[in-house]
């Protein structure tokens, strides 16, 4: 909310509500909503066979949409009156929650890690739950990787999935053509992805931020189109299958191993179970994600991390202080790309099969939504947003269908009401001298 409208709300709170004006305003909003809904909601096209279209009317939906907008608009105008006290203190439930989470950061982190480690061994845990946990952790890792670029350095990357794809394909190709195992290929995946990031970033990062957004979007599409059409190498739309699974210090997870190789269950004298591999894969991504987190947290305290955040706040001032913006941005972009590549390598080994379909723009949008919803720069927020985004479709078909609709709307709503994210509680990374009492 802007300062002017905030002031207006405060004034109107003291006076009696101007019902006539509110109702007129809400009625206007409802009229616009009805006009918006009329062609796309009210008239629905459907196939009638033979390549022709029929049309169905749903004017009841239009009426519902208009009524909802009327009520919503009215509520929005009355909201400051109903919540006078909270508004004056300038905090909301979310802000209090964020402040609380920030105070108890260490305890919450420990509890979260403990829960994540214990998850496969809890009594109610199942293969389905562990698989879901693995997916959540992939998104957490991608979110943390993108957070370096978007949250810390303030560069909008709309093609992050390209680096994820580069990492995945690097491992798949190394494994197919040179017989690399997961652990051998992991560093290469990161390096190749970082290389792509630097090559793309070098010419583009000296431009304005908006241009970077659209160039990265284009880059993501280029990678996807090349993967799709360069069939002799990438397998085209069929992708690459039979990607090797990770082994535990050289011990494979299999019922029976070829001559001279000890399997995991033989070495530890356990009964063979396919769940062992699922649990192991879960721990691999948990480790990778935690290392990513530790890495970025440490980087933030280094001069380079401070330079990222300074650059995000004011590029001109940074330049005046002798920071080379291009190099600093390039390092953030490259490190973000590397983390994406590592996650991609893990994704390939977990699926055992990759195809260009897994790396469409929707993936980039999903990862960006996780970072934005969680609060740019907030590590904890990313975890919560990833859990929400991945588990929501599991609650039912309706949620699965409306997931991206809700997240698109939520991205706008968050930018309008809580631009720093749902759980962002921003503290300066560095203070000079004594901590002032009033923040």
């Amino acid at each position, binding site marked *: 909310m802007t300062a002017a409208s905030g002031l207006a709300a405060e004034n109107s709170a003291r006076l009696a509500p101007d019902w006539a004006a509110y109702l007129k305003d809400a009625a206007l909003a409802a009229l616009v909503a009805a006009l918006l809904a009329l062609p796309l909601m009210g008239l629905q096209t459907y196939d009638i066979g033979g390549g022709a279209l029929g049309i169905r009317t749903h004017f009841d939906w239009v009426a519902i949409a208009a009524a909802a907008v009327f009520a919503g608009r009215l509520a929005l105008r009355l909201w400051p009156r109903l919540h006078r006290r909270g508004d004056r203190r300038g905090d909301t439930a979310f802000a209090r929650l964020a402040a609380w989470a920030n105070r108890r950061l260490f305890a919450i982190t420990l509890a979260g890690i403990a829960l994540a480690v214990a998850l496969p061994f809890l009594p109610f845990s199942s293969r389905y739950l562990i698989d879901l946990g693995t997916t959540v952790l992939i998104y957490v890792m991608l979110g943390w990787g993108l957070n370096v670029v978007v949250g810390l350095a303030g560069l909008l990357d709309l093609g992050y999935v390209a680096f994820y794809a580069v990492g995945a394909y690097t491992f798949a190709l190394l494994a197919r053509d040179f017989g690399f195992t997961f652990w051998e290929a992991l560093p290469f995946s990161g390096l190749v992805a970082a290389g792509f990031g630097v090559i793309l970033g070098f010419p583009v990062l000296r431009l304005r931020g908006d241009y970077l957004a*659209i160039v990265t979007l*284009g880059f993501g599409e280029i990678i996807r189109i090349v993967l799709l059409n360069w069939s002799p190498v990438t397998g085209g739309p069929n992708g690459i299958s039979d990607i090797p699974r990770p082994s535990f210090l050289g011990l494979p997870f299999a019922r029976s191993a070829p001559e001279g190789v000890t399997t995991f269950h033989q070495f530890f004298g356990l009964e063979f179970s396919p769940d062992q591999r699922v649990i192991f894969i879960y721990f691999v991504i948990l480790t990778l994600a935690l290392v990513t987190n530790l890495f970025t947290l440490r980087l933030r305290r280094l001069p380079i991390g401070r330079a990222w955040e300074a650059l995000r706040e004011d590029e001109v001032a940074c330049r005046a202080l002798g920071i080379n913006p291009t190099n600093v941005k390039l390092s953030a972009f490259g490190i973000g790309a590397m983390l994406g590549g590592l996650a991609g390598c893990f994704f390939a080994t977990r699926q055992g099969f990759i195809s260009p379909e897994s790396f469409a723009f929707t993936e980039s949008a999903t990862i960006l939504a996780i970072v934005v919803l969680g609060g740019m720069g907030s590590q904890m927020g990313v975890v919560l947003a990833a859990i929400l985004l991945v588990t929501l479709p599991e609650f039912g078909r309706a949620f699965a269908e409306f997931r991206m609709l809700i997240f698109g709307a939520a991205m706008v709503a968050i930018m309008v009401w809580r631009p720093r994210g749902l759980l962002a509680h921003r503290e300066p990374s560095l203070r000079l001298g004594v901590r002032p009492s009033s923040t």
Partner: protein
Amino acid sequence: MAYFLQQLINGLTLGSIYGLIAIGYTMVYGIIGMINFAHGEIYMIGAFISIIAFLVLGLAGISYVPLALALVLLTTMSFTAIYGWAVERVAYRPLRGSFRLAPLISAIGTSIFLQNYVQILQGARAKPMPPMVQGGFTVLESGGFAVHLSYLQLLIILTTLVLMAGFSTLIASTSLGRAQRACEQDMQMAALLGIDVDRVISTTFVIGAALAAVAGLMVTLYYGVVDFFIGFLAGVKAFTAAVLGGIGSLPGAVLGGVLIGLIEAFWSGYFSVEYKDVSVFVVLILVLVLRPTGLLGRPELEKV
């Protein structure tokens, strides 16, 4: 030679459509300095509204083609314009003066929202559209290859030229155009001199959306098929056109659009169809690196 001419005609047609969308990008960028990522979706919505309007007219029994076209053009432009207005009002206006990335992220959110909104309401399958404007004439025949110019292609190119001329006049010599140029130069000063800045910005979005709606209608007629995902690629290409022509410049947008259309047509005509989209992205990156101001743009001054 004949093949070259045919690709030229195809490219010009495609380029006209990109140019119409690019005007929306360039005008919004000129006035509030942001890339309206949702503009491609506005174009997609225009295409859907036009297909629905055609169906409704068909049910109403209007079969005289010029009348149907004119009616569909009007309804599509007005309804899509409301979408453009609403997007600005809901997703961008509250963010004026927010931090740098906020409007961009809001725009992406809007884009995702609109895409899924149309997908859920109208279904994910491609919508077919029977050809409305048929026929054409042969321009040239040589070596057994006939160069064909359909009436529809002519219509698309002519409509773009007329709209382009109309809006150039609007910007150059009406009070709205003057207000727009004033806001472009200095929004605060314009507001002090009594220009309703909010209204000018809204009008810009409405005009941009109306032009995108025309492009959507043209594409529906030209390709005869529409789905909810067309806005993504068309948006990126039109944006590339705007950058190539020099962002903020109206003639530049159309010039850029035509160039992009030609590049795409010749690339798929002479090299490979699969990589035609890659060619456009490569042009985008090259222009940004070698000549960020574009062909007709002015260099951007950074004020502290």
